[in-house]
């Protein structure tokens, strides 16, 4: 739950938060693309994912499709590429 801060930079793809079930980085200033392995290796047990209100660019990775088949319950990716703040 890192939302509503002023974190910048990208989401590191080497992050390993295997125990995390909630990942909320909304309302920050994150840039770059969403890493492809976000749903597979970074947060494999994720159930709530909040990526909204950042400055992400690019496309939603393919692994998110597989996330939808799993235990994921909630994805808040509205305004995913919008520039806020």
């Amino acid at each position: 739950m890192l939302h509503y801060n002023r974190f910048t930079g990208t989401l590191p793809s080497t992050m390993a938060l295997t125990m995390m079930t909630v990942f909320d980085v909304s309302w920050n200033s994150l840039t770059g693309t969403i890493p492809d392995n976000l749903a597979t290796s970074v947060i494999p047990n994720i159930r709530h994912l909040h990526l909204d209100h950042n400055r992400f660019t690019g496309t939603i990775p393919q692994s998110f499709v597989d996330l939808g088949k799993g235990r994921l319950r909630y994805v808040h990716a509205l305004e995913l590429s919008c520039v806020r703040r």
Partner: protein
Amino acid sequence: MMFSNKRGVRLPSPDKGQGAARDYPEPGSLFPQYSDPVPDDEYNNEGEFVVDHINDEEFIDFTNVMSDGKLMAGSAAATTTPQFKMFSTKKTPTTDKTIPLHAQTDETMSDDGTRYTHPSEFPCMSPPRPKYIYSHDPNNQNNETAITEEDKLTKVWIKYRLCILLAILVALVLMIIVLPISVSKGKANSKCSSSLNKASPTIAPSVYTGNAYEANIDMFPPSIIQAQPTASVPIGTPSAAPVRLSKPTNKPSDMGPTTFPTSFTMEPTSGQPTPLPTTQPPTVPRQHPLVGVLYQVTPADKLLNPFTPQGEALSWLVAADKQVPNFRAPERIVQRYAMTVLDVALHAPNPRLWSARYLHECKWAGVTCNDQKHVTEINWARQELQGTIPAELGLLSHLEKLDVAQNNLKGTLDPLYSLTKLKHAYLFENYLTGTLSEKLENCRNMTRLFIGHNDLTGTIPALDLRPLGRSSATILYCCSLLAFSLVLTCFVWFPFYISFTMINRMVYASL
């Protein structure tokens, strides 16, 4: 056992042995092959050899033989290997079988099939004394050379065995030493360990990093910093402090405790409001036992400054607290101090909990302890807390849940990084600043980190919070070392030992 005589083995004294060499009959006259000295039991008081009866069937040599073939006795017996010798004068009187003590079987078949009962089968360590005890014939050259060779072999084997045993011992000791070192190395490799106080391992790790801690080291002699476990009173030790006073640090001078308040200026940048309505807070003498303990966890400039939460907490603990005098373990004192600092720093503008401060900290509102009276939970959400999160929060090493959400707290996340048992951290909706550091990997049990709605900046680090993430390599290394030592012991040393004994037996059987 190999190097000491068995109890009950009678050794002839040297002087009587020499006397026996004179009085003894000529070689070959009485016994065709053996003209050895006999033990002292066979002498009368005049030193004359008494021959009562002679059984030429068998002679069991039960003496100690030195490497040069001579008889030995007395204290020198400890350096040789006791040996049993069996003779059969009937059939093959020149061949004797020398078998080392440890390789004996209970019964030995001679060449003619006669069954000799071996003395080692008597469990009482005192085998029945044989009728006649003989040593080797000093005139028999062949026998002498054989004895020297086998004794050399014995010594070589003994040395070899000793070396192997020593190597195994050294390997085991190394394992015991290497294991904690590697574990600590693994911890040191993790990026959070710079905040650990290496000078006081028995106490909760200090939360101070960098210059503050080094300044603490510089200010005080090592006898205070490394003063160990109990509440040691550093009486007399401050006299060594002024040696380093000439350092151009901005620390308070060590002129004496009475001059402390004058040498300080209020620091509005610390974010601390004036804590107490009292005009002149009490000063704490540096020789107080609590100060000796708390030197190791808090920089002295903060601890002895009565205007900081640390100094205020210390003065309150010294002056008014009724719990601390009952505490003996530094761990308890440090926990009491840390909770007091938290209370002072966060509840100061809103002293609703101050009345409860006299209680044990486990009975404070919102505080939960385990059975060992260690604080495990702090639930102070929506308590209108204000102030900066003190670094002493990191001293609560058993903390598992910290809930200070929805308050007005300032400060950084640094105190969290030394809470290795922390599982749930609720810090959202505060005014925290700073960055999220990779030191968070030190909190390996962290499953919930709520730090939203703050003023945190910087980038999100590449955290690796997998269970046993990076330390798995260290654990694997230790396990492999243990397995290697086990394999070395079971599959290398033990067969070697067995083969040594077998070779010994074979060598001595062939001689």
